[in-house]
Each structure stands twice: as structure tokens, then as C-alpha cells.
């Protein structure tokens, strides 16, 4: 396919590398929206998942909320919020956070729930209090799964943030939407491949996060 040739011609055009419509600006916007959405979703999903997983209560509710959020059509949410509050970053955030919360929430919940009861027993038996069990045992042991959920969310967000272009926001989606409207397919291809590249980068970043945050004992045990 000449997809890559088109992409190469497009991306190597110096005009793409400057100005408000250039790649750096839009990439920056894309990363910014995605990071904000992921941070928000993490702030919602991780604490709720930790608490429900730790207490074992609210599991059904958690699953239902996650299921509901997952079933929401993203463009519907986006457009509804645009009508409600006007164009801007807010509708994009609402839509992306709704998209990102389910994997983070469910993985955190399941990660904490999945901690071997024997371990919790041992921790309590040694005199750890509830919050100590949560922070010193359950969180570190659940961390690989939490990171996995965050990575999933991040990739979905990066790929879906393109629809922000539909409501007049920047980001890499502009290349796709504008390119389509103007029949400039190199632009569509370019934008898409930049998104894919960003997703690969996100994967790498989470691989590194895993290396630095997850205790070696857990990583090696998992590799076995």
C-alpha cells in the first residue's frame, strides 16, 4: 500500500511542523486532553476501586457503573454535553472520562479483590490496620492490574480523543476530520498514524511504569 508513502510525504512536509495547525501544536493538544482525561479517570476509578475492593462491598454497583459507562456511545455523550454547555474542553472531558473510568475502576476493584485472602489474613494477623492492609499490601499487589487498566484506558482515550475535532477542539483528530472533509487522504493517514504512534508510546510508557513501580517480586512471579 502507498499508505506509508503518503504518510511520509505528508509528515516530511515542513509546513506541517509549524503554526497553530502544525503537528507539534496538535500533538501537544492531543496529549494534553488525553492526559487530563486519564488523570481525571484515575482520580475517580482508583480510589473507588480500592475502597470497594477492600471492603468487598459495592462490587455489583461498581460492575454496573462500569458496564453502563462502557455502553454509552461516546459521540452521543459528547454531543449532548456540547448542546448543554457549549463547545469547549468540558464535553470532551466528560466523554473521555466516561470511556476511561470502566477499565480503571474494574481492574482496580478486581486487583484488590484478587489479593490472596491468605495474604490479607497474614497481614491482619501481624497487626496491620485496615488502611495499612490497603496501602501496604493490597495496593502494591494490585498495582500490575491497576496499571493494566490505566493503560487500556489511556489507549482508548488517545484513539478516541480524535472525535474532539468534531466539536471544534484541536488535537490529532483535526487532521482526520479536516483531511476527510477536504479529500486530503494523506492528512487522514498521517493523523491516524500519529495516533497509532502515540498509542505505541503510551504502551511503552506503561511498560516503563510497570518496571519502576511494580515490585520485582511480583513481576518475576508473574513471568513464571
Amino acid at each position, binding site marked *: 500500500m502507498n499508505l506509508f508513502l503518503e504518510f511520509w510525504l505528508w509528515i516530511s512536509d515542513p509546513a506541517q511542523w509549524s503554526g497553530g495547525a502544525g503537528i507539534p501544536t496538535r500533538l501537544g493538544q492531543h496529549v494534553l486532553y488525553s492526559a487530563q482525561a486519564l488523570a481525571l479517570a484515575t482520580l475517580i476509578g482508583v480510589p473507588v476501586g480500592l475502597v470497594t475492593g477492600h471492603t468487598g462491598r459495592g462490587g455489583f454497583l461498581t460492575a454496573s457503573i462500569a458496564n453502563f459507562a462502557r455502553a454509552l456511545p461516546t459521540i452521543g455523550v459528547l454531543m449532548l454535553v456540547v448542546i448543554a454547555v457549549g*463547545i469547549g474542553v468540558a464535553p470532551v472531558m466528560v466523554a473521555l472520562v466516561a470511556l476511561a473510568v470502566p477499565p480503571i475502576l474494574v481492574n482496580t476493584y478486581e486487583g484488590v479483590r484478587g489479593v490472596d485472602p491468605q495474604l490479607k489474613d497474614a497481614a491482619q494477623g501481624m497487626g496491620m490496620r485496615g488502611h495499612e492492609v490497603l496501602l501496604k499490601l493490597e495496593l502494591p499487589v494490585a498495582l500490575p492490574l491497576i496499571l493494566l487498566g490505566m493503560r487500556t484506558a489511556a489507549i482508548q482515550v488517545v484513539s478516541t480523543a480524535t472525535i474532539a475535532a468534531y466539536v*471544534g477542539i484541536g488535537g490529532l483528530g483535526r487532521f482526520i*476530520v479536516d483531511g*476527510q*472533509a*477536504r479529500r486530503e487522504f494523506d492528512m487522514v493517514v498521517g493523523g491516524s498514524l500519529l495516533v497509532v504512534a502515540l498509542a505505541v508510546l503510551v504502551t511503552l510508557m506503561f511498560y516503563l511504569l510497570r518496571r519502576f513501580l511494580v515490585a520485582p517480586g511480583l513481576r518475576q512471579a508473574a513471568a513464571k
Partner: protein
Amino acid sequence: GGGSDPFEEGDGDTPEAGTVVVGSADFPESTLLGNIYAQALEAKDIEVETKFGIGSREVYYDQIASGNLSVFPEYNGAIQFYLDPGATSGDTDATNAAVTEELPDGLEILDSSEAENKDSLSVSRATADEYELTSIADLEPVAGELVLGGPPEFETRTQGVPGLQDRYGLEFKEFRSLDIGIVWQALKDDEIQVANLFTTDPVIVANDFVVLEDTENLFGSQNVTPLIHSASVDETAREALNAVSAQLTTETLLELNQRVSIDQEDPDEVAAEWLESAGLL
């Protein structure tokens, strides 16, 4: 609806004989016109199928050319520039002649209506007052401070940003691509100061926007005109469509748009009522 069989082949394959497929683009006026055409044809006992809401001209033009769509509400100037981006705009007849010239075999346009829905540059009342704007040319000294907004294609097509530069010497501070559904809102929120809006868009009246006069006739004629796949549309159908064009005026279009977009009446009912009142049912 557009519920075609998912296993149906797309290209070169015309729908079953006798059925006229009416399409429309994905903005309300187009859907309204699509409804009007469809109902007018149905009134003549013609088998009609509808495929409304198709995203862009690029998509539907190919579909008409291949015969998957038979009738489409179009604007003569728009077709002209689509077919020949470098064309110079003229009056209705000149435009239609040029279009007929350029259209490939198998495609033709029928009679144009008087109703026109042109591109425009519009500004808010406040901006107009602030810079004392009445025509596009007035923008020249201040364009560098203003953000222009419109659908993505406006940035690159002749009747868009390049044309504004050539004919009026306008250099805006920035162009913002916006979905056509929210250009007006961006203008209202002052996200942009100059907007590419359609002249029949009811939001102009509703928000007291000021349409700047196109003194250089950049946007040309934009008469509502049915674009058809010749082989799929027989004489009866052509007559029915021409009858619609004969009665359709800009005022009618404005009023009907108002009902659909502002009062949120259903396009098919609005279409039916108008056809009835025009004696076309």
C-alpha cells in the same frame, strides 16, 4: 432509511429499476429538501427510497455518479466549484451552463429554484458595530485580529479562505475548523469572530448575526437544484422535481428551516405541509 443490505455490492450496481433513491447531506436544510423531493415523487406514485444524512459532498457525489443515489438536493454553485475548483462564479444561468458542461455523462441537473442558500461571512452584531462592518471588504483592515471559523473544507476551497485572500485580500488571524452544526455557536461564544454560515440558516436571525455583503460575488449563485443520475429518473419524476423548484423561494426555505431547526418540527412533516400548501401533493 439507509438500511441497505450489508452484503450488497457498492459500486456500479444500480438499485432495482423503478425505485428512485433520494439522498441528502447531513445538515438540516438538506434533509428537509430531501424530504420535499421524496414526498413530491411519492405523490406521483413513484417508488422512493431515502438515504439521508450523508456526510460530505465527496461521498455522495460518487454515490450519485455510480447510481446508488438517484436524486440529491444540491446547490448549482457548489457543484460548479466541486467539479472545477478554479471556476469563476457567475449568475444562475451561467453557473448552470458551466455545471452542465462539466458534469460527466449520466449525471445532470434539473431546473434550479429561485431559492438560494449561499455561503456567507457573518459576524455578531457587536463585532459589526465595533468595526463598522457591512461588507466583506470592510474586513480588510481588521482581519488580522479576527479568527475565522467554518467547516474544514472552507479553509482550502476556492470559494473559501483562498478566494477571500484573492478577491478581498483578507488574511485572518487564524482559521478554526468546526463542524457545521456548531459554527454559529462558536460565533455566539466569541470563540470565532467571523463565521462561514449559510444564508438560509435560521440561527442568523435567531442570534441577530450580521451577514456581510459579498460585493465581489465570491460565493456566486447557490440555487437549490436537484442533481440526478439520469438513467434512474424518468420523465414523470423530472416533472415533479421541476415543479418543486418552480415554487421554492429563499423566503420559503428560511421559514421552513426555522421550523425544523429552531422550532424542531420534524422535517418530513414540515415538507409535507409545505407541499400541500403549494399544491404539489
